[in-house]
């Protein structure tokens, strides 16, 4: 690359915004990706990293703002095919290979330029050279069916596929958590290739939760928070601690802080006394984690009447942990589950609200195997009143409710059951603020009555309602501390990997 293009922006985003319904995923983002640089993108859950990369890749359209590529403005119709034509490639976090196809066939899906009579030979050659270049000693044949490959090998294929240039050079590659399922040696191969690629004049956007990876591989790092880019600096200006700090300066730190304080007094005190008395008579739920660096993985412990918070980046094993607890306790019938992903694991959209509420308590509501309608209606009406579910009648179908009210029904379902342990899988996703407040109060009241809650949440503020917090990383709780020690910096620094342990 010649000298003057080196400093010029390859892609410039100017005041870009994107919303999903009420939620503003990106607001007013201005960012430049230069030629020949590796730009790091870092931030906590929901900071807008994925939205930003989807916009760059053309899989999401932007609502407002402008985007230019090599000085040329990109129109409203910028989409995947144009992105491909410009040499923009993207490796998404969720694996996007077709498991039923072979490696070389998957190459064609992403690189339709490979065609003609010899396309198989061509795709195989491209893929092999790309894999050899990035991951020497990879042991993957282009004829292998993807379903037969290990998860790490699949990720290698996907990364190598993004770097195969057919007609025109690859200008910009976006890697979202590329090392998440690679072992240390292979991850290192990738990172050194990243540097070689960038020095050859290519541009790269790297998203990773491993801080040292970011610090060593990136030229600049952009820190995102709540849909904003809050800081862009040279990677050499950052240290591990200053990066965590930059991510943690929430938009309204005073508000968060006061939230913690106010709840400390209202929640922690009554439950603390409760757990003292009941803890002796009622053994706490203890979950030993199966494996891992045994020295510092805490035992997750939930006493009666406690609210246990599970924190950490999304998809680091919190839901799997809840599932494990659910499965192990299900036989006793003493556990209830509140789904966060309402549509797929929560509601029966065509059933009535009453039926949706009663489904886990049917044993108590039936006689001789037949459901007693009066009892169901009585329960439904009682909980409609208690939770403040806004509907003219509980006989209406579940689908007629708004998202927030559907979530209240799911809470009523769990609280109405006789369970004394209630698991919550990030239940406040896409719920409005008013509903949240009502539900928080309810949870605290129920905990004061002696019910135990295990609450996975992706929102930091919700942790301030918990008595004890465990931070998850790579499928395990890596740290646990009481509410009094809760700080955003602590959650962040445990969520992001300290170092690659060999």
């Amino acid at each position: 690359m010649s000298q003057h293009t080196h400093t010029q922006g390859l892609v410039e985003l100017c005041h870009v915004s994107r919303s999903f319904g009420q939620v503003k995923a990106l607001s007013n983002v201005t960012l430049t990706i230069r030629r020949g640089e590796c730009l790091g993108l870092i931030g906590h859950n929901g900071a807008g990293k994925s939205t930003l990369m989807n916009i760059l890749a053309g899989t999401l359209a932007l609502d407002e703002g402008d985007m230019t590529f090599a000085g040329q403005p990109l129109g409203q119709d910028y989409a995947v095919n144009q992105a491909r034509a410009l040499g923009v490639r993207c490796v998404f976090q969720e694996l996007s290979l077709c498991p039923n196809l072979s490696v070389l066939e998957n190459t064609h899906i992403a690189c339709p330029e490979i065609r003609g009579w010899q396309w198989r030979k061509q795709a195989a050659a491209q893929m092999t050279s790309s894999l050899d270049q990035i991951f020497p000693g990879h042991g993957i044949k282009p004829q292998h069916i993807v379903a037969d490959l290990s998860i790490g090998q699949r990720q290698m294929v996907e990364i190598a596929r993004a770097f195969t240039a057919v007609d025109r050079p690859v200008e910009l590659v976006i890697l979202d958590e590329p090392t998440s399922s690679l072992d240390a040696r292979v991850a290192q191969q990738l990172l050194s290739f990243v540097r070689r690629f960038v020095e050859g004049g290519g541009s790269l956007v790297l998203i990773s939760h491993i801080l040292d990876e970011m610090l060593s591989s990136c030229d600049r790092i952009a820190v995102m928070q709540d849909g904003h880019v809050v800081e862009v600096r040279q990677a050499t200006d950052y240290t591990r601690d200053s990066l965590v700090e930059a991510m943690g300066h929430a938009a309204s730190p005073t508000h968060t802080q006061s939230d913690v304080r106010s709840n400390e007094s209202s929640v922690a005190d009554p439950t603390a006394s409760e757990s003292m008395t009941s803890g002796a008579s009622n053994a706490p739920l203890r979950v030993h984690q199966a494996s891992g660096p045994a020295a510092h993985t805490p035992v997750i412990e939930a006493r009666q009447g406690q609210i246990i918070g599970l924190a950490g980046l999304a998809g680091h094993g919190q839901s799997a942990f809840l599932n494990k607890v659910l499965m192990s306790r299900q036989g006793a019938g003493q556990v209830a589950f509140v789904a966060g992903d309402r549509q797929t694991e929560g509601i029966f959209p065509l059933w009535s609200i009453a039926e949706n509420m009663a489904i886990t308590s049917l044993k108590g509501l039936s006689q001789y195997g037949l459901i007693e309608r009066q009892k169901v209606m009585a329960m439904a009406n009682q909980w409609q009143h208690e939770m403040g579910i806004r509907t003219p009648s509980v006989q209406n179908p579940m689908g007629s409710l708004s998202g927030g009210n559907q979530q209240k029904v799911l809470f009523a379902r769990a609280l109405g059951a006789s369970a004394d342990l209630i698991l919550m899988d990030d239940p406040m996703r896409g719920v409005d603020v008013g509903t949240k407040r009502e539900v928080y109060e309810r949870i605290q009241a129920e905990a004061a009555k002696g019910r135990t809650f295990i609450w996975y949440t992706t929102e930091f503020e919700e942790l301030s309602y918990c008595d004890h917090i465990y931070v998850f990383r790579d499928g395990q709780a890596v740290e646990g501390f009481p509410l009094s020690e809760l700080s955003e910096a602590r959650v962040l620094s445990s969520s992001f990997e300290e170092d690659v342990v060999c």
Partner: protein
Amino acid sequence: MLSQRSILSSSSSSSSASASAATSSSTSPPTSLVGSPEWRAHIPRLLRTLLPAFSLTLLLLAIFVMQPRAMSYFGLNLMLNLAVPIALATIAQMMVIAINDLDLSLGAFISFVACVAATWLNTHPVAGALALLACVGIYALLGALIHLRQLPAIVVTLGMSFVWSGAAILLLPSPGGSAPDWLRTLVSIKTPWVPLAIVASVVLALLVHLLMVRSTLGVRLRGAGGNAQAVAKSGVSLFKARVTLYAFAGVFGVLAGLCLVGLTTSADAGIAMRYTLLSIAGVILGGGEFVGGRIAPIGAVLGALTLVLAGSLLSFIHIAPDWQIGAQGAILIIVLALRTLANRIGARS
């Protein structure tokens, strides 16, 4: 072992990074990532691929042992007489299964095509040909409807099966009609050495294999069944994929109907009703799966032949026709059990 620092400074990093990569790959054991020998990972796939051919061979051997006279040009011709239309129907079904749908109207559709061929195509060739083309168009439209409205294909095609049946009865209220002469001669060509049914099956299997497995179009179509989101993110139109596959299903359905009426020389409105289930069974017997875009054209044709020969075998061992459908079902279950066994072996190794 890991040198994070080496890639931090940008000027010298290229050489040092590649040097560190070289040392790390030379110090680590030189095994491939697969861990076990190359061929072992492919045993289950190999078993699965060979299973349709294996079951067909077994069936043929059983028939030849029971009835040595079947091992002749004439015998094979007689047994496989109706194999080609069933193989074509199986391929049509396979096109729909490739995108995770199921076509429950195929039997009724082929019956309708047979009725068109035995009436209009004979008396007004141009109108008949146009009607058949329109049939393919309707299939493509069905694909578009299912995709755009996100309807379950099973429901749509179940509804269509009544439409096709009704239309067939309107066209040919009582069995009759007659196939065009050219069609009759075409399907009764005497090929040298091996009967036409076998030649046609081989050609069909190879052509569809080229189309669906070897070509780039086939890769995109199967990819749409394998991971629709990923394919869409790569810029492939799922709408086009589904419409194309349904249109292909229509084409092969029409061919099946034509072939059938050429062989039987006349038609009736319910002539191919059992083809719906036979075609599904053929695809599954051949190694295809209901979801995931896993289809095998050669296997599907072998599966269809297996189903046809199973009928012959059952007659040879004097099982009453009443029991034959049940026995065919039993064969299907046995083959599926064998496949599960092959998968288990794969999971263990």
